[in-house]
Every structure is written in structure tokens, then in C-alpha cells.
């Protein structure tokens, strides 16, 4: 190593040191500490007693845990499929430049940046059994339902309201990712496919889809990673939909508080998350 290289390395370390310090203290260490906590009976005031694997056995024999896993599975399936398909449809629709595209883009992106706390109230009002426009349309205008329903009050239907809400909120980001790839596909490929006799649908399956393969995988993986730990969107819109993060929150901070059990839940969830992230770094990132 030349002195110049050594100076560069020293400067580099100096620059990242504060970041490393903060991130290890407040993210890496807590993750490890969480594993430690999962073997204890932990009180809210910080008292701990060692219980071995008791938290894990308690968790794995708890039927509410399995129902939370089921809910999370449905939620993940609904949001991942919905977001990817809607994002793809939006990208295909808005691919070509047209007048006013900037405005349309801004309008579409708004759900993604808006604070969850504000928009959930809009959604709650839309689905309100008395004043909501959804009930008005389905009951009074279309006559599809015989009576007004409280869709958010009932956990089974609330799950699907949450899924629609989430798709509404995150399709824009899928759209952005897919669009940036879509516009880079060269016209020649479409022309070649036309000469080979493919119509618009054939061209979509033989040119567009294979080219988008990679970006679609990215979108799906990112959605899985973010939505596995999604808390606010679900809890604030419909606190009765118990996905794993909400299940953990209730264990940790409400009712009969059991932070050790919550820690155990998080440890298992971290394991699953790591698998997704490993896939993402291995297959998608060139970082």
C-alpha cells in the first residue's frame, strides 16, 4: 500500500465512522439483543427472567400466531400480485409521451408520498357504513348488496380493504420501476417481432415480458421485503386485521404485555426477511 492509498483509506474510515457507529448501535445491536430477549420473560419496565425456549414453544402452540401467519400470507399475496399487475398496467398505458403526462404522473404518485395517517381517514370515510360512498354505490346505485355493510369493521373483509389500500399506495412505485425499464426497450425488437407476424398481444408476450422479467422480479422481491414488516398501513386503517407486525405490536405493548414473546416473533420474522434480502442482494443488486 502506498502512503497515498493509506491516506485515502484513513479518510474513508473517518467519513463512514459516525454512520457505522449509529447504525450498529441502533440497528445491528438491537437485532442481536432481540435474539437475547427472546429467551427471557421481559417486563415493560425492563425486568427479565431467563425462560429458555419457553417463548418459542408458547408461540408455536398459539393458534393466534398461525392465524396471523395466514393473514400475512393473504396480505402478501394480495398486495404483491395487485401492486405488480397494476404497476405494469400503468406503465404500459402511460409509456408513450402525451400532453399533460407530467400532471398525470404527479397525481399518480401522490398516494405514495402522502402520510398514511391522513389518507387512512379518507379511506375510512369512503367505506363508512352510513356516509361512505362505497356503500352508496353498491347498495343504492347498483343494488348489488341488499344492505349497507361495515367492511372495515369485519376483519375478514377489512383484510381486502387493506390490500386494496396498499395496492393504491404502492402501485406508483412499481409503476416507476417498470416504466424506466419499459422505455429502454428498443423499437427494433418490436419491429422485428412485427415482421415475424406477431400482433400486439404476441409482441407483449415475446418482447415486452421477457425484457421486463428482471425488473418484475425486483418489484416482487421489494414488495415482499417491505410488506412483510408493514405496520402503519394495516394498523391505522384496520387495527382488527392481525398480520404478524400487528400481532407482535399487540403482544409487546397492549393488553397482557409479553415482550419476550414479541421478541421471539420478531426473531422468526427476521429469519424470513433475511431469506428475502439474501435473494435480493444475490439476484438483483449489483451493489
Amino acid at each position, binding site marked *: 500500500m502506498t502512503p497515498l492509498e493509506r491516506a485515502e483509506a484513513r479518510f474513508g474510515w473517518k*467519513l463512514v465512522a459516525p454512520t457505522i457507529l449509529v447504525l450498529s448501535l441502533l440497528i*445491528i445491536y*438491537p437485532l442481536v439483543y432481540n435474539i437475547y430477549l427472546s429467551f427471557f420473560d421481559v417486563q415493560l419496565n425492563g425486568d427479565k427472567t431467563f425462560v429458555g425456549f419457553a417463548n418459542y414453544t408458547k408461540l408455536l402452540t398459539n393458534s393466534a400466531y398461525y392465524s396471523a401467519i395466514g393473514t400475512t400470507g393473504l396480505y402478501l399475496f394480495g398486495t404483491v400480485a395487485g401492486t405488480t399487475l397494476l404497476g405494469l398496467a400503468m406503465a404500459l398505458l402511460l409509456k408513450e409521451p402525451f400532453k399533460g403526462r407530467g400532471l398525470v404522473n404527479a397525481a399518480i404518485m401522490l398516494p405514495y408520498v402522502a*402520510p398514511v*395517517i391522513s389518507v387512512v*381517514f379518507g379511506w375510512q*370515510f369512503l367505506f363508512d357504513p352510513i*356516509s361512505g360512498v362505497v356503500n352508496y354505490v353498491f347498495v343504492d346505485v347498483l343494488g348489488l348488496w341488499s344492505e349497507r355493510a361495515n367492511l372495515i369493521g369485519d376483519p375478514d373483509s377489512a383484510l381486502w380493504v387493506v390490500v386494496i389500500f396498499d395496492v393504491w399506495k404502492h402501485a406508483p412505485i412499481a409503476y416507476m420501476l417498470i416504466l424506466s425499464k419499459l422505455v429502454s426497450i428498443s423499437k427494433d425488437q418490436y419491429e422485428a417481432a412485427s415482421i415475424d407476424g406477431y400482433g400486439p398481444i404476441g409482441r407483449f408476450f415475446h418482447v415486452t415480458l421477457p425484457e421486463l422479467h428482471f425488473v418484475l422480479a425486483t418489484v416482487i422481491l421489494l414488495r415482499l421485503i417491505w410488506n412483510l*414488516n408493514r*405496520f402503519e398501513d394495516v394498523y391505522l386503517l384496520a387495527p382488527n386485521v392481525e398480520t404478524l407486525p400487528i400481532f407482535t405490536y399487540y403482544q409487546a405493548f397492549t393488553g397482557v404485555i409479553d415482550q419476550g414473546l414479541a421478541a421471539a416473533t420478531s426473531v422468526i420474522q427476521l429469519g424470513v426477511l433475511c431469506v428475502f434480502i439474501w435473494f435480493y442482494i444475490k439476484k438483483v443488486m449489483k451493489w
Partner: protein
Amino acid sequence: MLGKRTIKGRIAFVIAVAALVAFSLLPFAQILSTSLKHQFDWGNPSLIPQKLNLEAYKELMGLTEVQKVEIPAAIQKILDNPNLPQDKKDAIAAKYTANDNLFPFGKYMLNSVIFSVGAAAISLILAVMGAYAISRLRFKGQTVIQRSVLFVYMVGGVLLMVPLYQMAMNAGLASTMWGSAICIFLIYIVQTLPVGMYMLGNYFRGIPFALEEAAMMDGCSRKEAIITVVLPLSLPMLATVFIYCFIIGWNEYLFASVFLKQYPEFHTLPLALQELFVSKNAIWDRIMAASMLTLAPIVVCFLLASRFMKGGQTEGGVKG
């Protein structure tokens, strides 16, 4: 895809775009509309209020006159008792004149601004330093740091709430008001730092090294080259990252509820709005007006940032 060459195709295209925009904006329109409606009008599916109601906004911004509360005669009698010390009298009077319905929106907004702007600023400074190091300088362990930042970035808050709360408890921070506020501040920094570093790292890599090299040839040190060459070139991106970090802090609910719930003094907007919603003082027009005012700064920031964000430069680096 819709062929735009035919009239039919063009009409279908316009309808599809209009439907998409309507779907995206309907909840916002609903919030705005309900915030401006009188109660008798709520059940009316039309988005346009029959009669404009600005009371909710006036109330939130503190423009309504403080209502004078009548003190019950029995209490007035006690207050008139000359044997009662003055401070006791004041305490009783305060209890009966306090206006519990008031929602100190301005205070919550100020809290939110302090937490999210402060955290975003510190986060940005750390991110600039870190991102420059991992994208420009060669040193051992660089790849490991890079990967760790990405990993850390994807760990959701839910996985950290229990250990962070316990750590704060052990350190004696979670049981005091100021300690909890410090915790939230630190947490908002780590929640935004990895995103900032990721976005800036990608951006710095795109700036040609020759520019810095030239500055250093002219006798600048590396530090000076960063400050005089790299940072001015990155201004739009710095603004974007700052706004992005600000939005994350502004929208955060989970940690605020864990650490600040018992300290109304420090409630941020998301927490205060949720508390208002579940309280008995929940009135749709007031909630919607508060939502609107919480939304507004974000919309403004977003419109500012979107100018710089053209072409999806941020690629896969966007949280959410």
C-alpha cells in the same frame, strides 16, 4: 396496449387515464370535501359541499374565539369563600374553565417539524460523508459496509421496536419525557440514514472523478474538493434526499406511539391524529381538516422534489 392511432383507441386511452387519475385522487378529494362539509351533509355522496364549512380549519389554526365556560353556581360559591387560599381557587377555576375539546394542532405540527427536519438534517450530513466514502474511496471492508447498509435499510421498524424500547428502558431514557424525545430523534436518524446513503452513493458514482481530480491538481485537499466540486454538483440530489428523509419522519407512527404516547407534550401529528380519532372528540370535519393540514406540507415538498426526480433516478432505492 391501446392503439392510439384510431379515434376509438384514443377515446379508450383517455378514459383509462381518467379512471386511473380518479382512483388515485378520490381519497384525497374525499378528505378535502368532508373537511369542508357540515354534519348534515356527510351522508351526501356528492363531493361538493352544499354549504361551505370552514369552522374545522379555523378551530385547528386557533382562529376561533375561546369559548367562555360557565362556572356552576355551587363552584362559584366555593370560589367566593374568602377563607380559601388564592392558589387553590385558581386550581379549581382552571379545572372548570379548561376547554378539553381543544386540539392544539399548532403544537403537534411544531413537534413534527422539529423531529423530522432535525433528524433529516443530521441524517443528510452523515449520509453525505458515508456515501462519499463508500462510492469514491478505496479501503478494506468497503463492500461489507455497503452490503450492511443495504441490509439495515430493509429491516423494518417492527423488528426493532421491542429491543429499542428495552434498551431505552435500561438506559433510563424511556421513563422520562426528554429521554423519550431524544430516543425518537435518534430513531428517526437511523430510519432515514441508510436510504439517504443509498440514494447519494448511487448519485456520487455518476459524477465524473476527473472533476475532483482537476480541483485537487489545482491544490485543493480532498475535503476541499468535496465541498467545492462534489456538493455543488449534487445540490438537487441533496435536496431530494433531505425531502425524502423529512417525509419518512413526518409520516412515522409506530415509534412515536411506542415512545411518546404518554407524553402529549411531544405528540407528533400522526400520533395526535390517531389519538384524536379514537377519542370521543372525533368529528369527521375536524379529523379531515387535520388530515388535510398534515398532508399539505408533504404535497408541497413532493412537488418540489419531483422536479429533481425525473426519470426515476432513484431506481430501486426507494423505501416503502
